[in-house]
């Protein structure tokens, strides 16, 4: 795999970081675009491109030759230990060599502190710990917020990226924090080697963070998991998010320190802490559906968050973020789900509910014990939706 020298070019009021990647799959242009007003933060080093291309190159088993400069610290890690880690998570990857044009010990000391801000529980939790609170040392106080389009918006793509960004923009303006949108075609590169977002999330987001080395010295990743969740369960394989505590600090350069935050709290604990942040009452956005910005109120993430807040007696605070009437109507349908206790979040929600004295209805317990309950329910929903669709069609 050959990667051209990164260039920063101005196009239509945007600054674009561009490289051409040539591999056995052909020639592709990888780009990231940033509003011109943030152009002064951008670096034209090759760190972004190498971090972005590492998994695709390992999947193809092709050495990376790059016509640019990368950080010595990053080169050291990506050449050895990091590949070992990735191979453990994605066993189909192969060890490769990285051959940069030059390796440098960066001397720039940037002072900005940046984090990705999606409006979710983890992101609000990070904002709470590193911005809202008074006793934060200046070296760790957030100065910039980032919003990426590197694959997390799934089928919603660029449209959803824009909608979600625009929804949160007024909050960031109120806070006085620059909110930097970064668009990219990185997803195409990963799609071409059939690597999912969850298997590569850390590297995708880190590649964006590394763009900003001219102004940002610390990048905080909002982690979704407690340390104890990294415990060799079958679902850990193929999911880089479980490994954030290891995978993130490795991607630091001499100029930019990266680390993940929030591993010391469960999602329930974070939700409770966030529920004391007034701004979250309106702006919380935890939805995993790919249709609209804001919360659908019905997906798994919406329901588990509403239920947690409900049990804690704090759901009414969120009447601007969720359709609460709808939630109270359908919440009984959700009760069996956490009782499956088949992922960390479900387990902690049940533990929390029971600790708060909540009694799950007998029906929910029976359904949770029914083999293939979720699958059967999904099939029933699918049939119901089809029937409804046909009826609507008949009426037309």
């Amino acid at each position, binding site marked *: 795999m050959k990667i051209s020298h990164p260039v920063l070019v101005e196009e239509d009021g945007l600054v674009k970081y561009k490289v051409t990647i040539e591999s056995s799959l052909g020639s592709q242009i990888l780009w990231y675009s940033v509003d011109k007003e943030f152009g002064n933060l951008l670096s034209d080093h090759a760190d972004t491109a190498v971090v972005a291309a590492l998994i695709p190159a390992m999947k193809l088993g092709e050495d990376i030759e790059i016509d640019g400069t990368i950080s*010595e610290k990053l080169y*050291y890690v990506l050449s*050895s*230990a990091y590949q070992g*880690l990735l191979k453990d998570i994605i066993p189909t990857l192969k060890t490769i060599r990285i051959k940069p044009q030059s390796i440098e010990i960066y001397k720039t000391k940037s002072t900005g502190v940046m984090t990705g801000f999606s409006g979710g529980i983890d992101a609000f939790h990070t904002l709470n710990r590193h911005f809202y609170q008074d006793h934060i*040392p200046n*070296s760790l106080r957030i100065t910039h917020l980032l919003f990426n389009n590197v694959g997390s918006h799934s089928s919603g793509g660029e449209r959803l990226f824009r909608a979600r960004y625009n929804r949160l923009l007024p909050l960031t303006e109120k806070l006085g924090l620059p909110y930097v949108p970064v668009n990219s075609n990185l997803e195409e590169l990963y799609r071409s080697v059939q690597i999912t977002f969850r298997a590569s999330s850390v590297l995708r987001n880190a590649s964006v963070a590394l763009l900003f080395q001219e102004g940002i010295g610390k990048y905080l990743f909002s982690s979704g998991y407690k340390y*104890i969740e990294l415990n060799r369960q079958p679902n850990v394989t193929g999911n880089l998010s479980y490994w954030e505590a290891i995978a993130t600090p490795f991607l630091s350069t001499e100029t930019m320190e990266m680390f993940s935050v929030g591993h010391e709290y469960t999602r329930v604990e974070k939700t409770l802490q966030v529920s004391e942040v007034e701004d979250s009452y309106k702006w919380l956005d935890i939805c995993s559906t790919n249709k609209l910005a804001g919360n659908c109120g019905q997906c798994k993430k919406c329901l588990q968050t509403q239920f947690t807040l409900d049990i804690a007696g704090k759901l009414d605070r969120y009447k601007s973020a969720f359709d609460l009437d709808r939630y109270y109507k359908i919440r009984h349908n959700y009760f069996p789900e956490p009782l499956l206790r088949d992922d960390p979040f479900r387990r902690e929600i049940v533990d929390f509910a029971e600790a708060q004295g909540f009694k799950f209805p007998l029906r929910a317990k029976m359904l949770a014990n029914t083999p293939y309950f979720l699958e059967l329910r999904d099939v029933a929903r699918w049939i119901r939706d089809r029937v409804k669709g046909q009826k609507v069609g008949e009426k037309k």
Partner: protein
Amino acid sequence: MESSLGANPLWFSFPEQYRELVSDRADGAMVALLLPAMVLGEDIYIDGPLSERLYYNFSGRAQALLKTLLPQLSRVQIHAEHLEPALKSSDSPEGVATGFSGGVDSFCALADHLPRYKPDVVPSRTLTHLLYNNVGSHGSGGEGLFRDRYRTLEDTAQHFGLPFISINSNIGLFYQGIAFEKSHTLRNTAAALVLQRGISAFLYASAFDYGRIEAKPGRSMGSIDPMLLPLLGTETFEAIAVGSEYTRAEKILRLTKVPETYTTLDVCASSKKAGNCCQCAKCLWALVALEATGSLNKYSSQFNLDRYYQIRDRYLPEILLGEHLFSQELLDFAESQGYEFSAKSRLLAKVPFYLEGREMGRKLRDRLRKK
């Protein structure tokens, strides 16, 4: 250090010639004493200059991580009188250190960070110093064994042309009741951190490959090295876990290409004397792996090979029956190297209750001997 257990000084001592590397900041003490304070459930009041970064990590994430391993620990508050980023003048040395015990992990770290074995190692990760600590790893052998082992490794360190710094300490006094296995990363990093005036990177040879990394109660501290070490650094000192990209067997294979190991490799877990006993689980595991690589004879000065061949067939069934943490790894490695376990060992592994019977026989023999 004053606690509910009384007042005791914590000390680290270094040979005089390394005085310029030694920092008088409180960072090393902080790393040394966090775990003992969490065991006691006592908040820490610390008087010397403490790194802001260390304070931040130790107030939250490091404690949470330690509690996953040792759930009985209590969360404590850290009250620092002087929070000051550690600063270094531009002419300060940027030393890169690793602990050197002559074992598999440390030799592998050495081989990966010296140009003679890894020509493309970058300058900022090229070793400049080797450390040898007395922070609890010598078991009941204590300071005597520490000195003996140091002396046996001195020539090798000299051969590499690197300063070999012996660090003595009474840190073990504060870890009574906390096994070395459950605390070694903190003990060793604390000793290295005291040298942060001249050392900017500490490469910690991790014993666990990524496949064994997990934060789970009861596990060895090595199982969280890659998560814990980044939390132990300051503004001028990085602590980095190295070697997790290899399994132990892969490390041994790598060492067979490092001639210095033929006369220096020391893998022994017994705490009686320096050198390899050839009977403990660590010695036997390494011997089988070396035999599988076809390089065992090169290590004849380090191991009593006659003794090994005598007892090998009684040990191999333990591996075949999965008795050890690393059994499967050795089986896979042996297969990859085309090594066949002896017919006798395979037969013994099939005898019902072979290991239990052997253990009973051993106990009976010991009793008769005593009588």
